């Protein structure tokens, strides 16, 4: 009996061990046929990822790298992306800055390639409680944000430091909820009185009569959603440069409200063409490859204890060629 058990245990362990083995991908060298190149992408949900999915839908990178195999997956948040990047399951991922800094802090060797968007972020509150600033939020009230260590969480923290002088003042009020759940909770009179929302939830909630009491500007300004690339991808200069160019092209199309790009946004987000145009031009929104607030976030997250090591500067977090938008 005991022998059997030990054997079963061993088999189970071997199973786990081998299931996790993954074949490292081969990135090809410079040439005109890229059929030996596979790039594995991951993006998340929401309009701030529009440059990624417009590049995907219009085949902007395929055009530049004929024959290359591009694989796309969607993730719910930065922590799963981090795990996938660390276990060499992804080459490129689009996410907020804080999870990137958490990973770099732990010694992961991927870096930020460029920005893709500075999304609006607003704290939306229920109108019936007379809340007009962070100061009015009581200990029993809950503030919903998409996840812990997300840009919304860090922005709330930055705003609370600015307004109340304490970065951790709302840590106990914070509740991690996906945008749709937070929307339900906010509308159904629960303890959730505030939602650090992104698009299109900001607009939907305001249309439902909720109030915006704080924007990214109150936290010192909007921060980029970034494109991160692994070391292996970055070392293939040609492929890397074409990726940057393709993202740049997608961003240009969004900024000039190209008909096809707007249509893709409206289909993906299930919103009208008018709404898509309105959100592209929403105050605080910028579609740009420039990076906003990488340094400030690194500094803040270090001071507030979210990461352990002081940042060694912009160049230690980004690949060569990444541009900071300055302050």
């Amino acid at each position, binding site marked *: 009996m005991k022998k059997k058990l030990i054997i079963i245990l061993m088999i189970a362990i071997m199973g786990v061990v081998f299931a996790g083995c993954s074949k490292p991908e081969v990135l090809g060298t410079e040439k005109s046929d890229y059929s030996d190149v596979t790039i594995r992408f991951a993006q998340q949900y929401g309009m701030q990822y529009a440059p990624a999915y417009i590049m995907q839908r219009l085949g902007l990178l395929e055009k530049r790298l004929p024959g290359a195999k591009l694989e796309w997956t969607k993730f719910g948040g930065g922590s799963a992306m981090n795990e996938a990047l660390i276990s060499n399951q992804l080459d490129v991922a689009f996410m907020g800055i804080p999870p990137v800094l*958490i990973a770099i802090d732990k010694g992961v060797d991927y870096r930020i390639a460029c920005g893709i968007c500075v999304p609006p972020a607003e704290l939306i509150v229920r109108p019936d409680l007379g809340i007009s600033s962070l100061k009015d939020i009581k200990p029993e009230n809950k503030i919903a944000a998409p996840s812990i260590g997300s840009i919304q969480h860090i922005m709330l923290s930055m705003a609370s430091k600015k307004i109340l002088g304490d970065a951790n003042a709302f840590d106990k009020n914070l509740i991690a909820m996906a945008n749709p759940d937070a929307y339900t909770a906010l509308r159904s009179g629960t303890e959730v009185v505030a939602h650090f929302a992104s698009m299109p939830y900001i607009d939907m909630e305001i249309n439902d009569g909720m109030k915006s009491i704080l924007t990214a500007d109150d936290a010192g300004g909007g921060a980029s959603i970034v494109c991160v690339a692994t070391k292996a991808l970055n070392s293939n200069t040609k492929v890397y440069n074409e990726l940057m160019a393709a993202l740049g092209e997608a961003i240009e199309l969004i900024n000039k409200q190209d008909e096809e790009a707007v249509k893709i946004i409206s289909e993906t987000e299930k919103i009208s063409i008018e709404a898509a145009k309105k959100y592209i031009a929403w105050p605080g929104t910028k579609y740009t490859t420039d990076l906003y607030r990488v340094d400030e976030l690194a500094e803040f997250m270090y001071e507030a204890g979210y990461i352990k090591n002081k940042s060694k500067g912009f160049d230690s977090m980004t690949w060569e060629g990444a541009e900071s938008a300055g302050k």
Partner: protein
Amino acid sequence: MAGIKAIVQKIWSYNLMRYPVYILLVAGAWQAVFLSRMFPQILFPSIGQIMSSLLKESMDGSMLLKLAFSMRLIIIGMLVSAILTVVLTLLAMYSKSVKSLISTLISVFDPLPGIALLPLAILWAGIGDEAIIFIMIHSIIWPMLLNIIGGFNTVPIIYQDVGRSIGLKDSKLITGVFIPASIPSILTGFKTGWARAWRALISAEMVFGATGASGGLGWDIYMKRSYLDMPGMFASLIVIMLIGIVVEDIIFKKIENNTVKKWGMVM
């Protein structure tokens, strides 16, 4: 020599004595995998890192707080589910149509994961402890009912006839015949309920986030994962496993020994 062998066999026959051996085997295999660098060490920490994280959190009391938070919810969930199960079982005993309604409900709801009911839970119970308890009760009650009603159904007619012929009626018949005769199923119902309660709690907490000032083990796992604190995450998983071992091998074993084993219902 034979004496030593007998003693070893005797010790080996106790689950609690066997566990350390199994644990050492697993820990050894784990450490070997870690050392082989087969996986990125950020995601696959060493036994030493996990243990020091577990030790640190046990010493400063934070693990105990999180455990207490989760246990409180589990106990409430189990109690409410048990009461509901008793009431529904009694109703099913008295009325055939209630029984068929309940079995329909079981087949409809049992396969639904609690998390799938999240939007409803938020709508009806808000986002506090109540929502987590709501999801937990949903996860516990169907397998519990299934086992207990199933147990009652399979009580041999001859036991029931004996009960009736010695003058037992209604509630006396239930407490005197049905319950003792279906103790094995009732225990299985509770064991399944207990396991489901943990699963529901951890997943609900991972979705809801903290509901109180501290939050329980599910929230803790979620936080540690967000911050790539894998040793801490595995430490919390170990705590959940330890609780499982303690409850299964001490509490449920004891109940079994004092009931079904004592009465000779199972070997």
